[in-house]
C-alpha cells in the first residue's frame, strides 16, 4: 500500500513508498522475463490511458503494464478523442467516472491537469506527464535502473544535462534523487535553466566538462526540436559540441559510470550514436524497467481494495 491515493507529483510519495515501489518492481521484472507474462492480480479492474499529448513509449509501457496484470486497459488518444470536438477535461472526467474506471493515467499539455481529474473523479490518478511540470513514473524507473546498476542510490552523483527549464522529466527526477539520498547536479546553458535554479536544491553549472570526472550517472535530456518558439541557442551543432555526450566525454567519466536518456533520443545532438549503443548506456534497461515499475505502481495503488469477486 502507498501512503497516497494518486501519483501526480513525485513528492506525493514518501521515501518508504519509493522503496516499496522499487522492491515490488523487481518481482514484476522477473514476470516480464518468463514465457507467460501475465498475472491475475488486477483481474476485472479498469485502467484508462488518457493521453491527450503524443506518446508512444510511455503509453505502450502503461498499456503493457495493465495488460500483464490482467486489468482491462482502455486507450484515449488526443486525435481520436472528443477533446478534438471541444470536450472539456472536466466533462471527460465525468464521463470516465460514469464508466467506473479504477485508475486513470493522464498525459496532458498543461500542468495541473492530473489534479483536476483527481478532484473530479473517484479513480486513482497517475500523472503520465503534465506540461513541463512532472513525470513521476519516469523518475521512478530511472531510480530503479540506477539502483539495479549500482546496488544503491545513496550518495550517487547524477548530472542532469540539457533543457532543465522545460523538462517534466527533470521536474520529477531532481526531487526524487534528493529524496533517496543521491546528489543531482544540473548542467546546461543558462538559456535552458529555470529562472531560479537554486530552488531545485542542486548544484548548478554550465560546464559539463568540469563535473564529468565526478559523475556516477550522466542523464541526458532530449533537446525538444518540436518547440515552436525556436532554439534558445545558436545551433544544434554548438549545443552538441558544448553539452552533448560523446566518446571523448564518456572517457572523461569514471570507469564504472553510466549514461542515461529518457528517450526518444536525438542521436548526434545530446548523445552520439556511439555512446547510445555502448555498454555504458542504460537506455534499453530503462525501457525494460518502465513496464515493471509501472506494474508496481498500479499494483500498489489498486491492489488493496475490494475487487468484488475473488479470483
Amino acid at each position, binding site marked *: 500500500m502507498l501512503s497516497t491515493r494518486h501519483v501526480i507529483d513525485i513528492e506525493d510519495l514518501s521515501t518508504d513508498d519509493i522503496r516499496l515501489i522499487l522492491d515490488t518492481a523487481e*518481482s514484476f521484472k522477473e514476470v516480464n522475463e518468463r514465457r507467460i507474462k501475465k*498475472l491475475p*492480480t488486477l483481474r476485472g479492474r479498469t485502467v484508462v490511458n488518457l493521453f491527450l499529448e503524443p506518446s508512444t513509449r510511455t503509453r505502450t509501457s502503461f498499456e503493457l503494464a495493465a495488460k500483464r496484470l490482467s486489468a482491462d486497459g482502455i486507450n484515449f488518444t488526443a486525435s481520436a478523442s472528443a477533446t478534438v470536438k471541444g470536450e472539456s477535461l472536466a466533462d471527460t472526467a465525468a464521463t470516465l467516472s460514469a464508466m467506473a474506471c479504477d485508475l486513470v493515467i493522464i498525459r496532458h499539455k498543461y500542468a495541473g491537469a492530473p489534479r483536476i481529474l483527481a478532484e473530479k473523479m473517484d479513480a486513482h490518478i497517475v500523472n503520465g506527464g503534465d506540461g513541463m511540470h512532472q513525470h513521476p513514473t519516469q523518475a521512478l524507473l530511472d531510480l530503479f535502473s540506477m539502483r539495479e546498476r549500482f546496488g544503491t542510490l545513496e550518495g550517487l552523483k547524477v548530472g542532469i544535462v540539457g533543457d532543465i527549464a522545460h523538462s517534466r522529466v527533470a521536474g520529477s527526477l531532481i526531487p526524487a534523487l534528493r529524496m533517496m539520498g543521491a546528489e543531482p547536479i544540473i548542467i546546461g546553458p543558462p538559456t535552458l535553466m529555470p529562472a531560479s535554479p537554486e530552488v531545485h536544491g542542486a548544484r548548478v553549472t554550465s560546464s559539463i566538462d568540469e563535473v564529468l570526472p565526478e559523475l556516477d550517472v550522466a542523464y541526458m535530456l532530449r533537446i525538444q526540436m518540436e518547440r515552436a518558439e525556436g532554439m534558445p541557442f545558436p545551433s544544434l551543432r554548438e549545443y552538441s559540441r558544448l553539452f552533448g555526450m560523446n566518446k571523448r566525454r564518456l572517457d572523461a567519466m569514471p570507469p564504472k559510470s553510466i549514461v542515461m536518456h529518457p528517450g526518444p533520443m536525438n542521436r548526434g545532438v545530446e548523445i552520439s550514436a556511439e555512446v547510445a549503443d555502448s555498454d555504458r548506456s542504460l537506455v534499453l534497461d530503462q525501457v525494460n524497467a518502465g513496464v515493471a515499475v509501472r506494474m508496481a505502481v498500479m499494483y500498489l495503488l489498486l*491492489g*488493496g481494495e475490494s475487487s468484488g469477486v*475473488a479470483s
Partner: protein
Amino acid sequence: MNYRTKATVMDGDAINRAVTRIAHEILEANRGAGNIALVGVVTRGAALAEMLAEKIAHIEGKPVPVGTLDISFYRDDLATRLNPEVHRSDIPFDVEGRDLILVDDVLYTGRTIRSAMDAIMDYGRPCSVQLAVLVDRGHRELPIRADYVGKNVPSARRERVKVYFAPMDGRDSVEILELEDQEGAN
C-alpha cells in the same frame, strides 16, 4: 495479537527424519530422480525444498533441479490483505513435461497451494504436480491434498501452526501457537 508457544510437536531430529522419509517416498513414487524437480513456496517451503534436494542428491548420487515460487500475486485474498512483502520467483529449469513436486511447510486451507498451481502453470505445462508438506494441520477449504506428509498435526482454527528453520528463525522446530490470553481455555 500476541501468540505464545503451546506445544512443540517436532524438534530438529524429528524434522530431519521426516524429510529423509519424504525424500525416499518421492523417489519411490517417481521411480527415481530422472524427471523430477522441486519447487518451494517462499519462504519456508523454499528452505524445505533445498533440504529435500540435498537428501535426494545424496541418495541418488546426482542433483535435482530446485526452484522457488512467490505466490503473492496469485493470492485470492488480495482484496483484504495486501502483502507488501513480495519476493522473486526463480524457476531455473524448464517446467515443460516435468514431474513437479511443490513443497511447502504447512498445509492448512489449501489456498496457498491453489495459488501455487496457478503460478506454476504460467511457467509451462508440467507432466504432473505433486505436493510435499512438512505438516498437514487439517481444515481444508478447497479439494487439495498432499502426496507426501511429514506429520499430521490436528489443530484448532484459533491456533497457529508454525515451522521454524535455523537459518532464518534460529531453531528447527514445529510449534503450535495460541493467543496469549487463552490461559485456561483448551
